[in-house]
């Protein structure tokens, strides 16, 4: 396809389009491919999310660094090499020389600095600075351009995790930007073009910002393997090969092999499944689509019609469907109860995970109390790590209703009025509301797990009731301490506890300790010490600081250890701190509980498609897959640009 354009003089020959040292995709299962063909995909969402963002998860081109071997290593992306000084406070990054944007203009350090100075630091543009660019002390790094292909990030304290954190996400739309096409975007920016329209900042937002969002604007340059050709809002998007993509395979062939990628949006999930079984898609990634293990039999039965081969990749989930209590619930009596480790352990022992695993997950995965991903590096690095994982996983996993009843008796929850349910020690009624958003599908994993929870907890005398809540405003009420539980989530995160520690360390308001999380987030801002005389739940935003009597000293311990990891240069010492934080969870929790870890995800590949990794490929190279976390972008980590059609002529769209 491109050869004709070169002959016609519209495109420079391939040697001139590639950088001096293109990135060579190193995966061991690859074969040399054939050019041509179209890859059709479908997604299901009520708005643009599917057609714009899901397809970005397939392309790693905009990322400075990349995860390798399912999170066990980091390799370069558009950054060719990097180094840090003695105390890891100054990081120098060398960009591959000769990379060009999809419109042929060179990619240089100017594009990185433009993003930093004119988008992040500019107060009118709403792109917040990524946490990766903050030092352990909370101050922003300084970016410095050394030359056209080298830039530095200078922190005021050692920042050992910088490279790991830059490998997260596909960036530019999902995750922080790290770069922006200066030559294209500057005409939309007030600093360079005083004649811009009044609301020019809207052009710099994701999604939809004309200057930067290459997933909605075909003219916006990108570094990914495919670039947007056309796009109909909510319906579909069509992507064609980027002639300047800077990656090759081991045989020196410029990627991608496939010419066109089409993503079509089907609003109703059941219709999506129908069309998939009819063969309307060539590739379906279970990580984005509403496929559950219950659909496996349907896909297997319709294999001949759809020509799709079913493969399982590990999700890497630490919990599958989970539940957790609001550690900062507004009512003091209930709050004291849900902060009591015996109560949390009792409820966990009362939960029959095996039945849940059989019914919902078809006996896949391993039973767990609820941890971060078992594939995280702190668990796999050595035997001690494996031991830590096992101790967290098994800390309250045993299904033992008698033990649960005994623990509940010890706390003083007895059935004083003979109604069959336990009351508070002072005799008042105890009702555990198993809250979940009302728009959860009734036969989905979360609602079905909740049904089992209600049954199991009632069997040990706890009056537990499933309580659907209106989905809008859930988080507002959560952080006001008005909702007791969250039960429709899962923990996917790894590959490294510290690059995405939100489950381990309360640092924002949507997880198990919203008010502590809010305070942590405001450290270093004026709000940290304001409103001290106001009731924590009435502050704006609601928060609990260490000076409040409602503060939990265990969380303060976790914060202290976490702050230490931000500036600890030695990897094993950081890992030890992570293990110590986990110990706090084990002793005082379980703060969040799950069913089974590492349940599989469905992947469907057309029988004619090649170069995608099988589960065995991933097991021998990496960890068997790590689909769930968005920070480890699947399938981008397996470079779909290397995939090719065995018979490209049979797969072209006219």
């Amino acid at each position, binding site marked *: 396809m491109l050869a004709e354009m070169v002959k016609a003089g519209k495109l420079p020959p391939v040697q001139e389009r590639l950088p001096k040292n293109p990135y060579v995709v190193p995966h061991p299962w690859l074969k040399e491919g054939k050019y041509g063909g179209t890859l059709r995909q479908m997604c299901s969402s009520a*708005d643009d999310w599917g057609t714009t963002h899901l397809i970005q998860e397939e392309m790693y081109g905009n990322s400075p660094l990349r995860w390798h071997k399912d999170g066990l290593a980091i390799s370069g992306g558009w950054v060719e090499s990097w180094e840090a000084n003695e105390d890891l406070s100054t990081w120098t990054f060398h960009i591959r020389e000769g990379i060009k944007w999809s419109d042929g203009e060179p990619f240089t350090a100017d594009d990185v600095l433009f993003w930093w100075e004119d988008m992040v630091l500019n107060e009118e543009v709403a792109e917040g600075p990524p946490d990766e660019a903050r030092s352990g002390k909370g101050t922003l790094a300084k970016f410095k351009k050394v030359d056209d292909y080298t830039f530095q990030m200078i922190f005021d304290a050692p920042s050992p995790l910088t490279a790991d954190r830059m490998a997260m996400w596909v960036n530019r739309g999902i995750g*922080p930007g790290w770069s922006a096409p200066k030559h294209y975007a500057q005409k939309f920016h007030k600093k360079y073009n005083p004649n811009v329209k009044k609301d020019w900042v809207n052009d710099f937002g994701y999604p939809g910002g004309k200057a930067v969002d290459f997933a909605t604007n075909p003219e916006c340059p990108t570094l990914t393997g495919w670039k947007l050709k056309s796009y109909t809002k909510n319906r579909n998007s069509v992507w064609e090969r980027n002639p300047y993509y800077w990656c090759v395979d081991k045989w020196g062939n410029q990627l991608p092999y496939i010419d066109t990628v089409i993503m079509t949006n089907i609003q109703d999930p059941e219709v999506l499944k129908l069309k998939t079984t009819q063969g309307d898609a060539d590739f379906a990634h279970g990580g984005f689509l509403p496929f559950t293990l219950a659909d496996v039999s349907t896909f297997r039965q319709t294999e001949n019609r759809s020509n799709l081969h079913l493969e399982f990749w590990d999700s890497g989930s630490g919990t599958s469907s989970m539940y957790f209590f609001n550690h900062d619930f507004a009512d003091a009596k209930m709050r004291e109860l849900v902060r009591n480790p015996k109560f949390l352990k009792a409820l966990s022992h009362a939960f029959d995970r095996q039945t849940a695993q059989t019914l919902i997950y078809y006996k896949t995965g391993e039973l767990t109390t609820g941890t971060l991903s078992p594939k995280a590096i702190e668990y796999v690095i050595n035997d001690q790590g494996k031991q830590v994982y096992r101790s967290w996983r098994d800390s309250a996993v045993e299904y033992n209703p008698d033990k649960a009843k005994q623990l509940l008796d010890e706390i003083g929850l007895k059935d004083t009025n003979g109604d069959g349910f336990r009351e508070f020690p002072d005799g008042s009624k105890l009702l555990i509301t198993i809250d979940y958003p009302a728009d959860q599908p009734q036969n989905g994993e979360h609602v079905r797990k909740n049904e089992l929870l209600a049954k199991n907890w009632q069997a040990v005398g706890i009056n537990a009731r499933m309580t659907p809540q209106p989905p809008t405003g859930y988080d507002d009420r959560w952080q006001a301490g008005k909702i007791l539980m969250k039960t429709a989530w899962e923990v996917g995160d790894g590959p490294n506890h510290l690059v995405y520690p939100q489950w381990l360390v309360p640092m924002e308001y949507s997880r198990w300790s919203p008010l502590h999380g809010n305070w942590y987030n405001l450290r270093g801002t004026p709000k940290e010490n304001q409103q001290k005389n106001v009731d924590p739940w009435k502050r704006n935003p609601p928060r609990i600081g260490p000076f409040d009597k409602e503060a939990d000293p265990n969380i303060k311990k976790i914060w202290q250890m976490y702050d230490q990891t931000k500036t600890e240069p030695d990897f094993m010492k950081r890992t030890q701190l992570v293990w110590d934080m986990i110990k706090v969870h084990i002793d005082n929790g379980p703060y969040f509980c799950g069913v089974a870890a590492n349940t599989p995800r469905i992947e469907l590949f057309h029988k004619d498609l090649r170069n995608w990794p099988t589960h065995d490929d991933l097991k021998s190279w990496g960890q068997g897959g790590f689909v769930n976390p968005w920070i480890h972008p699947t399938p981008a980590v397996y470079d779909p640009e290397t995939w090719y059609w065995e018979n490209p002529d049979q797969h072209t769209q006219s």
Partner: protein
Amino acid sequence: MTNYIIRRLIYMVVTLWFISLISFFLIELPPGSALDARIQQLRNMGGDMSVQQIEALRQQYGLGDPWYVRYWKWISGAVRGDFGDSFQQGAPVSQLIWSRLGYSVMISGFALIFAWLVAIPLGVYSATHRYTIPDYLVTVIQFIGISVPEFLLALLLMVFAARYLNADVGGLFSSAYQNAPWSWDKFVDMLKHLWIPIIVVSAGSTAWNTRVMRANLLDVLNQQYIQTARAKGLKESVVVWKHAVRNALHPLIMALGGVLPALISAEVTTSIVLNLPTTGPLFVTALLNKDMYLAITFLMMLSVLLVIGNLLADLLLAWVDPRVRLE
């Protein structure tokens, strides 16, 4: 006559104003805002919004204001034609609705014409050949058509078409033509996809129209003037079509009043199931996500069309039936 029309127009404006107030208030009632869905999405991808960003967005979209302030902001723009921006879709409301309106009107229009073309002859045949086998057959099919929910019918037809006819179901175009410019091929492709939506959307109203037609015609055929006409020696077809049917049509014409809003909302659940690019699904998502301006604009559009439709139906009835006097 003119007095009547002017009076009706004044009533319409007052009614519409009340509708807008009450609807706005009701949509605002549940807790939360459109911002929540966006934050949730962002959070699922780990790109958390900072507290400052959330505040800024709240200010920009006026999500913190009390409902009457937001109502005033909307209504003052609406009378000038600016219906505000959709928060969730990130585009002006008028642009979103306009881009889908064509398809909605087309599908509903075709369905309406199809329903009438099928229902009236079928109803007349049913009435004139009462208690015969074809009549029973038609009756059974029509009852099924009224009772089966439309989305279920849509699903059944889709599965049937996909399995046995090897048709490409879902959506109005095959993926090849989705983004292509209009051409004869694209038009033909659309027709190939159009038959399922038209059958589904018209199923309910065809059934209803047929039943009503049949029942009314039976009533009219028993009237004395029909006997007179037959006694005068007129041909049966003239008696039925020129005299009886015209009088039996009145309920159908009155029902037309409700057709105008249906033209643009085109059966929401069916559109979601069949993945049609119509306005219905847009409306539903707007309501579910509290996307304020989109929801209220759409609701107002439907209300305007309803009241206008009713007025037109009344006028049409007056024209058809000389017994009706407009007060």
